[in-house]
């Protein structure tokens, strides 16, 4: 009896701890500032879309949204492409080269990506890649390659060797085997890794903070930071912007829950 009560109380408490702040944000995006301060959890007096209209009107959320989409989509696509090619090579090579490649990329798992901010910054200044979405995409690819290769290699190694061998006997080359056997079979792993990468790129703050100063090149996390005013923050606008920034993630989470959870946990377990 005591166990059951404690269990239920604890479970409810944490569920509320998640739901209450989330509700404050969702409800707040329809409210005026004063209403948020005085009654954060009450339903809005009127469900007005003024905040959203304001946000679109001032135009400082549409551009970052577009930038974030560009950066995330291209980063994920190229990381998955390069990582799956490399992972295929590593998983098929029984020679020393495969081993060396694997160790090379494992080094990247040992060195936290954050420590490279200074050399990357100076390199990008020289290459004129600051204030450039291409620059962010390149950084994202480089930073996420090791973990992606790690996840995909372990997956490719699980594909039965006979599948490859049969294709090899039929005269298919490596590129062909990669495309018609390894890729189709690894669709779940690629999907999970893709989502994991998308979340990282969509939410990254450190590198954009350092590389992007121009307003029209900012990504969503940078814009959100800008909403925090020097002296007073307009929480109604901030919450609305958070809503807009989170919507793609929430939609993906609801639509592809299994893949989403698998991706984010695989990233943690393998990383």
């Amino acid at each position, binding site marked *: 009896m005591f166990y059951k009560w404690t269990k239920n109380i604890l479970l409810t408490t944490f569920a509320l701890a998640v739901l209450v702040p989330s509700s404050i944000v969702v409800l707040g995006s329809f409210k005026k500032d004063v209403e948020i301060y005085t009654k954060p959890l009450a339903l809005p007096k009127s469900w007005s879309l003024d905040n959203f209209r304001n946000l679109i009107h001032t135009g400082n959320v549409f551009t970052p949204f577009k930038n974030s989409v560009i950066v995330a989509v291209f980063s994920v696509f190229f990381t998955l492409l390069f990582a799956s090619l490399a992972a295929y090579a590593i998983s098929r090579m029984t020679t020393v080269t495969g081993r060396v490649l694997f160790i090379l990329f494992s080094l990247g798992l040992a060195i*936290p990506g954050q420590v490279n901010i200074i050399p990357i910054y100076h*390199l990008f200044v020289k290459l004129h890649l600051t204030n450039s979405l291409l620059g962010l995409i390149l950084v994202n690819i480089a930073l996420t390659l090791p973990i992606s290769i790690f996840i995909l290699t372990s997956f490719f190694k699980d594909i039965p060797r006979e599948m490859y061998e049969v294709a090899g006997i039929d005269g298919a080359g490596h590129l062909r085997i990669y495309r018609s056997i390894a890729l189709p079979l690894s669709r779940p792993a690629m999907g999970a890794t893709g989502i994991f990468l998308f979340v990282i790129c969509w939410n990254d703050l450190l590198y954009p903070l350092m590389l992007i100063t121009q307003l029209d090149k900012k990504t969503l996390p940078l814009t959100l930071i800008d909403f925090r005013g020097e002296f007073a923050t307009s929480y109604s606008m901030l919450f609305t912007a958070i809503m807009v920034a989170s919507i793609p993630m929430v939609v993906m989470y609801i639509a592809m829950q299994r893949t989403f959870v698998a991706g984010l946990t695989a990233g943690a377990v393998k990383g």
Partner: protein
Amino acid sequence: MAIPAVAVYSFLYLYPAIQNLAYSFERWDGVTKPQYVGLHNFTYLATNDDLFRKIVGNNIRFTLIVVIFQTALSLLFATFLLKNTKTTILLRVIYFFPTILSSVSVGLIWTFLYNPNFGFLNASLKAIGLNKFALNWLGDSKYSLYAIALTQVWFHTGQMVIIYVAGLQQIPADLYEAAEVDGATRWQQFKNITWPMALPTTAVVVAYTTIQSFRAFDLVYSMTQGGPLNSSDLIVTSIYNTAFSSFKYGYASAQSIVLIVVVLLVTWLQRRTLRIDYGVK
């Protein structure tokens, strides 16, 4: 086939990492010519820099709090949510939800909750008569680090619950049935079955949380920017500020070398004590 990956990775990961090491032996403001100073940055860090020592201390405290609370809570919740029923699945979905938000969003939402004047946390505490506990969470150097640690726990506990549930579901059910027959209490079952059997999962959770805590930047930057009085400064925020506010690039690089060493050391220690097998299966 590995050429594109190797090219990007070498040029934008390994080469910068080596350069970073080179910078750490230099004094450089980014404008004038870098000056080779040998180990000076490191000796200064170790002997003269009280602030950096404080920051490393902050980071260790932050890591300990987050690791202990996040691991304990997620293991506890995972044991509650082990069976697959409608309620447990719904709760797991709710718990996981913060993980999909961006750390900046989470930081800014909690900045609102923690606000001493109109924040939800203090309003709730006052409403139930706990005025004494209505603190200036982020504005007081005594509490800021803990407030951010709490946010971090809120942020990632759900993700760890999922990892634990997957791990605990591997434990054969007959072990519990046999224990039940022998009249073992819930606590005895936990101590003698769940805990030892979940040790590999605990190793993963602890290792991941530790590394994540030493890499932490976003929450601090969006909530306090390290303040007040550096009370919530962590290693990565210090590297960032040393480089991009004080323009001491060489010195900042030396700090980042310290971060690498700390991370490697912790990983090695945990591997030894928790016997993690990281190998690809």
